[in-house]
């Protein structure tokens, strides 16, 4: 599901449309708020409060009672609701396989490609040290 928070809402919506999701009732209207982001002292010690980030959350319920919860960084209300809907669908045996192949897998592949490309660009800036041989004879 982590793949969804990294995708744009129109991407998710376009892919989700292909599996004809059932209608869902709103359990929680998309709501923007904050989370306090925590770091650790020294990177691995006791936690401390670094600063806040905007987050939007939503919750939906399918006709059979399955509930889905959506959380994402930022203030995109549509995206929070779409994630909540996907969270509900992934729990349903009749939708989970299609969700995986038609929505999650393509998003994952696209993100993987982009991440790989990015990593290759970064890798090109890695330093190769060499030593100059001094003539001391």
């Amino acid at each position, binding site marked *: 599901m982590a793949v969804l928070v*990294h995708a744009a809402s129109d991407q998710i919506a376009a892919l989700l449309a292909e599996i004809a999701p059932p209608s869902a009732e709103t359990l929680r209207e998309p709501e*923007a708020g904050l*989370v306090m982001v925590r770091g650790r002292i020294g*990177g*691995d010690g006791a936690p401390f409060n670094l600063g806040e980030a905007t987050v939007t959350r939503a919750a939906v319920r399918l006709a059979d009672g399955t509930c889905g919860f959506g959380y994402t960084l930022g203030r995109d209300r549509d995206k929070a609701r779409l994630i909540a809907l996907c969270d509900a669908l992934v729990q349903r045996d009749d939708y989970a396989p299609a969700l995986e192949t038609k929505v999650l897998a393509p998003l994952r592949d696209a993100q993987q490609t982009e*991440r790989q490309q990015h990593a*290759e*660009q970064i890798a090109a800036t890695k330093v190769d040290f060499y030593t100059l041989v001094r003539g001391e004879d």
Partner: protein
Amino acid sequence: MYVAVKGGERAIDNAHRLLADRRRGDRTVPELSLAQISEQLALGVDRVMVEGSLYDRELAALAIKQARGDLIEAIFLLRAFRATLPRFGATEPLDTAAMQVQRRISSTFKDVPGGQILGPTFDYTHRLLDPQLDLGSDPELPERAPVSSEDMPRVTDILGRDGLIEASPQADAEVPVGDLTREPLSFPADRDLRLQNLARGDEGFLLALGYSTQRGYGRSHPFAGEIRFGEVELEFVAEDAGFAVPLGTIAVTECQMVNQFKGSATQPPCFTRGYGLAFGQSERKTMAMALVDRALRARELGEDALAPAQDEEFVLSHSDNVQATGFVEHLKLPHYVDFQSELGLLRRLREEFEQDAGNNGAMQEAAE
């Protein structure tokens, strides 16, 4: 006594209308979009998020636009905005060891495992103005190279394995994490509160204080053990869902300062440390923060605390540029009544002075 004075509404309205016009500038010049600010003035956006203490690139870009590029004003706007939103809770502490690194350097080990990765940096540029940028730029695409699967441990973890550096303080489950947005700061402040304060503190102020420690005002023999910048995953334990949900990734910079060693009769000598962490690519900020964090540990480490950077109350009370701006800039608000009373007092004192001078003169004449 306070006297209410009314008036000036029309002037204020017109001043704001004028401000909007001046903000827009020459209308024949294309207007800036938020995407342009976010993409092309990215480090300015980072700074506003860091000191505004709110991670939201779009809002920070909006704040910069609204503030006409005045970053402290933009930071103020972001702080004011955050006060309007409910807080859902706190994230799981982020794991910088698992960072998707974009830059990672160590000035202590040439052959650090995982390598020295320069990433997008101003270092080694010649600092010559580039007129090419004025002509419109379409830079070459970045070079690419095979990605190494080598691990990239934190330098402090490597030193820690041999016990050569002090361990980070571990959490006490009994003590909640301090939060200065909920409880006003009191002294002495624990390290979690100090780091929160420094993380949102003014970069210029921390830079000057960090610099002062290097020049001898609370020297701590620092080495930049490691600086890393990249993306980390955020997780949040959502009460309604009942499990940890992924929220997405944020970019952060971390600086591990390795400092002067210390030992005692019972403990072998080992390096001490200072820590810096901030949103975005904020290298100067996190380096300064790490120096000041280390300086503020003087008492804990049994050092003389004589320098400004070691004075916790001085540093933490003056690091916040929104607070500082508020108090400095309030001086331009009307102080007419205050000033009238000062003026009255001054006139009376001068009269008394002149009378005394007159009397003394008369007495002197009489004495002669």
